[in-house]
């Protein structure tokens, strides 16, 4: 999707048609076949019971009243009661079963979508706002459900009702049926035309409503700015314009709906009148009994309501097809690509080698990494130093296979990474990011991530080792203490500690640590320093370091600049060389932090 039509997302006319919709939903529907069959049977049962009622009444008139058969009339009255009960039961079963079926289908669809989304490459998440993806998974699926349960099902069952009415009419008198319904195509055509108009108005209405909602949300969220910049009056004016505009569109839809009325009423008038008149004629010829005419008239009056319902739903849910299209577009996104015949290493020593690695995100973009050659020994700790844009983050993304490095450039224990499944690699290569995502729930589940393979014991031990347990105890909390959305109730330092404990619990063979630049109070700072030592112990570790104290602790230092490896060596070696690292280190010597912006200035100076 190009970026140009982002504003018109709701407006784009969809290419999805009902047949496409059914075809794509069929795999989910198929799993609930028995529910579907019972629901269809209930529709048929309801329609049959509904049609038997006029017959019964007509029969009662002809054979009971006209023929003066007292006994039959009483029997038929009981039969009428039975039919009404039956019809109500069938109608209930029909609506309920279809809903059950639809909800089950949506459940399958959501599961599939969730599964799919999580296997999309990271690029997808970088270019698509979170809100949009979430909307696909929740609101769009719900809209599809509505389209299905209120649209498709209604249209289907009402169509069956119409068919049954037409059949019933034809059985009574096919001539009369033909005469009274002869004008039907004209009226249906006219109302279809109008309902297309209504659909367009509804689409516009939806768009204007979302404009209004966006405007409100923004003005309320940014109320301070609006007030500080004296924009209140002007924005009220803007709101008035939006609101009046929306009202006018609403009025158009009201008028259009109102115009639908005469069409339906006129149709009603024509059919019933002609049924009455010609029924009278037939009756005068004695070719139609009075009871049958009565039954016929009842049927005629049952013809219009389902037709109206179909037309109304048809317009309403045409628009929901856009939701279906968005879901299908998401489903068609390509998952992370895997080769066949992958290798599955049981144990990884942590030998990491990079050979002639050059990398660009897309063919027409500049290279982010240029001819990188590095070899890290098992258990070694490496500090990766460089300013923003030097390629550090890209480098670690390649190690975890978030992006695919060119073939045979990155090796773990001598195996090219593309030969190892992504999930496998990520089991062995663990990452602590700068800003680690914290889930709502409790502390324990944030460390174990709800993985059943991680035992309570492992979590506890991880917390002890990082020193997090002491902090928890001191603040009177435990592993089950609640965590708010995004860890809002935890300090930056604490969130960092949770990430460390996570790593220890999962115990990867290779560790990548992106050191936080954020200001942390001095106490957590100390705990984190200790924890860093703890988690790097005994495994190959690559640390994107910002603090001199961290860098000095590492076995070797790699200096990256504009995608190239500039220097490699120990702290002492590099200081002696008086190159880039030396400048770096001396600039920050006085302060505990090397800020990227400062470093940038220094190197440009």
């Amino acid at each position, binding site marked *: 999707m190009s970026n140009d039509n*982002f504003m018109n997302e709701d407006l784009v006319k969809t290419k999805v048609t009902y047949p496409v919709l059914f075809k794509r939903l069929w795999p989910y529907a198929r799993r609930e076949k028995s529910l579907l069959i019972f629901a269809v049977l209930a529709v048929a049962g309801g329609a049959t019971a509904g049609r038997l009622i006029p017959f019964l009444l007509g029969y*009662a*008139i002809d054979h*009971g*009243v006209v023929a*003066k058969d*007292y006994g039959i009339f*009483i029997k*038929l009255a009981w039969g009428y009661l039975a039919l*009404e009960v039956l019809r*109500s*039961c069938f109608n*209930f079963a029909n*609506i309920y079963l279809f809903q*059950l079926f639809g909800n089950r289908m949506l459940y399958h669809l*959501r*599961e599939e979508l*969730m*599964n799919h989304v*999580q*296997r999309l490459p*990271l690029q997808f998440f970088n270019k698509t*706002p*979170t809100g949009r*993806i*979430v909307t696909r*998974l929740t609101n769009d699926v719900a809209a599809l459900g509505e389209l299905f349960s209120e649209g498709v099902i209604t249209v289907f069952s009402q169509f069956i009702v119409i068919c049954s009415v037409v059949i019933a009419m034809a059985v009574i008198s096919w001539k009369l049926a033909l005469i009274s319904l002869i004008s039907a195509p004209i009226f249906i055509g006219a109302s279809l035309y109008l309902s297309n108009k209504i659909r367009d108005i509804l689409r516009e209405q939806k768009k204007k409503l979302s404009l209004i*909602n*966006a405007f*409100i*949300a*923004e003005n309320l969220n*940014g109320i301070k700015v609006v*007030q*500080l*910049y004296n*924009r*209140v009056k002007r*924005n009220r004016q803007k*709101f008035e314009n939006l*609101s009046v505009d929306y*009202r006018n569109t609403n009025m158009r839809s*009201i008028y259009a709906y*109102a115009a639908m*009325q*005469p069409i339906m*009423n006129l149709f009603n*008038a024509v059919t019933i*009148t002609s049924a*009455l008149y010609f029924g009278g004629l037939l009756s005068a010829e004695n070719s139609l009994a*009075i009871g049958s*005419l*009565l039954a016929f008239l009842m049927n005629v009056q049952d013809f219009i309501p389902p037709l109206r319902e179909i037309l109304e739903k048809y317009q309403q849910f045409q628009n929901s097809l856009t939701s279906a299209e968005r879901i299908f577009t998401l489903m068609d996104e390509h998952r992370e690509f895997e080769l066949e015949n992958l290798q599955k290493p049981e144990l990884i020593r942590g030998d990491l080698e990079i050979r002639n690695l050059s990398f660009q995100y897309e063919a027409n973009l500049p290279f982010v990494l240029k001819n990188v050659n590095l070899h890290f020994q098992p258990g070694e700790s490496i500090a990766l130093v460089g300013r923003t844009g030097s390629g550090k983050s890209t480098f670690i993304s390649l190690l*975890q296979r*978030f992006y695919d490095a060119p073939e045979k450039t990155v090796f773990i224990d001598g195996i090219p990474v593309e030969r190892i499944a992504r999930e496998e690699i990520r*089991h062995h290569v663990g990452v602590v990011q700068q800003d680690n*995502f914290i889930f709502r729930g409790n502390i324990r589940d944030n460390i174990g991530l709800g993985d059943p393979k991680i035992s309570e014991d492992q979590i506890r031990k991880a917390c002890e080792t990082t020193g997090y347990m002491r902090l928890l105890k001191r603040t009177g909390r435990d592993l089950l203490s609640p965590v708010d959305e995004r860890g809002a109730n935890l300090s930056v330092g604490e969130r960092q500690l949770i990430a460390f404990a996570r790593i220890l619990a999962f115990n990867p063979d290779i560790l990548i640590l992106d050191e936080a630049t954020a200001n942390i109070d001095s106490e957590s700072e100390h705990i984190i320093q200790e924890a860093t030592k703890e988690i790097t112990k005994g495994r190959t570790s690559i640390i994107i370091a910002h603090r001199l104290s961290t860098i000095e602790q590492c076995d070797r230092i790699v200096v990256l600049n504009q995608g190239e490896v500039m220097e490699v060596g120990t702290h002492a070696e590099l200081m002696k060389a008086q190159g880039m690292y030396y400048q770096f280190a001396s600039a920050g010597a006085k302060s505990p932090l090397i800020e990227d*912006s*400062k470093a940038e*200035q220094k190197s440009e100076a």
Partner: protein
Amino acid sequence: MQSSDNARLFKSPLWYYIRNNPRAFSLGMLFLLLTNSLDGIYPLVMGKALDQITAQVPMNDIAKTCLIFFIVMLSLAGTRMAWRSFFGKYHTYAQEHLRQKIFNHITSLGPNFFHKNQVGELMSLLTNDVQSFRQAIGPGVLILADGLILIAILLPIMISLNFSWTWKTLIFLPAVPFLIMKVMKLIHVNYKTQQDRFSELTGVAQETVGGIRVIKSFAQEGNRTALFNGVSSAFEKACNKVAKVDALFMPVMEFGVTSGSVILLFVAKDDLYSGAVTIGTFFAFHRYIQKMVWPMTALGLGFSYFQKGTASFERIKEVLQTETDIPDNGTIEITKFETLEFKNVSYKHKSSTVYVLKDVSFTLRAGESLGIMGPVGAGKTTLLHLLTRLYPLEEGQILVNGHRIEDITQESLRKTFLLVPQEAFLFSESISENISFGLEGRASADIIEKMTETVDLNREIQSLPHQFESQLGERGVNLSGGQKQRLTIARGLIMRTPVLILDDSLSAVDTRTEKAIEAELAKSASGFSRIIVAHRLSSLKTVDKLLILRDGEVEAQGTYQQVLGVSPTFQKIVQIQGQEPTHE
């Protein structure tokens, strides 16, 4: 007058909106009455035709009856269209009017109101509650009237046809409205549960997408799907519960009413056999029983719309009755800045007992610049909010050019003191529109470019696909936190107000850009001043005065050296940040 208008609205919202649009309302009602009358007549005409057919009268007479029938139906088409149009106008206009009223009121309230009321709730007030209010005074009133009119027309007709049939067949009918109200309530309760489950579902989806990096890093996709399936299945169950009540609604109600038709067969048989009642009458009566389904449903639905609408209007009323804590009653217009004086200003939030600011006093003259430092929670932002009248001043005095700030019009005050707030809030408009936000019109391309140059953003904007016309926000480009912050500085700079206040905005800017911003400020009208809240010493290199706040109190104020001598907080900052800024 605004308040008397509100009083009228609160007293009787229905009457208020009928009076706002009396023509549409009364015409709508009139046509509804006509429609219902015609609707009441037509089965009679049909019954007559049937009787004529049974009696085998000449076809001519039957044709006449058919013609009458056709005319009745035709008029019905016209009146139906008319009432829908007129009535629709009445409640659509009412909805629009109320929506604007609420919006205008909310935007006059200060930030304190928004601390108490979440934006999500206010949004729901402006959309859902306004909608259900409209439902009540529009369709609610309508179907109640419709139901009552229909009953008033149908019942006499039925009684005139046959009194004993009427009461025998309709005996169960009065139960229907109550049944419906009960079912509606049940639907409402279940629907609420469904909504809650849906929020949970959204929550999990949101976290999964937001935390995708962590999930992928730890290969948790499978577990995450299992977790999602759990809430997804809970949601499904809630949906099924709603579906069950929903599915029961129509069949039960229909049966409740059609039971009348069954009774009819039993009670009518004797009359039919004796010939006391014709088949046509029997048919018409049967039709009337069917027709009673709707008015009974309408009564139930109408009342439940009313209940919901009343509850919604109570919420709306509560917000409309909230008085602003920052009334704009001042009359003095200030055009330039001479002096600013804080005199023993203290502040605490209404709901709290803890003072955020305690006895703060200082003065600032035109041309001077002030730096404010202090740890998180020291009251820095509160101080700035008081100065720009976002918070009400309750203790002490703030004097601008010798006038109390309450006496100065808010517009001229904010044209003199412009605060660039801490949180970088931008609007979903183009970049150039965002920069011109405070200006009357759009600033020229030159000026916009110059401003972005000043905040070191020009290069980054030029690399965007639509440059200055790029849309921001969820549906446009995503800027980084630092970029947003710099954009808000540009938005402030372009205003060229006598005093520019930066609340920690410089944290996103390097020292070189800081200098450029300073130089830009120096160009504006003579006597310009700055108030800068910052954590970095380098940001405060050139200010004339420092104000160190701690726990709401002024710990020290004066020049760099003066402050360094007495303020432990400042001493600690200097110690941590190492190098001393070159200070002149």
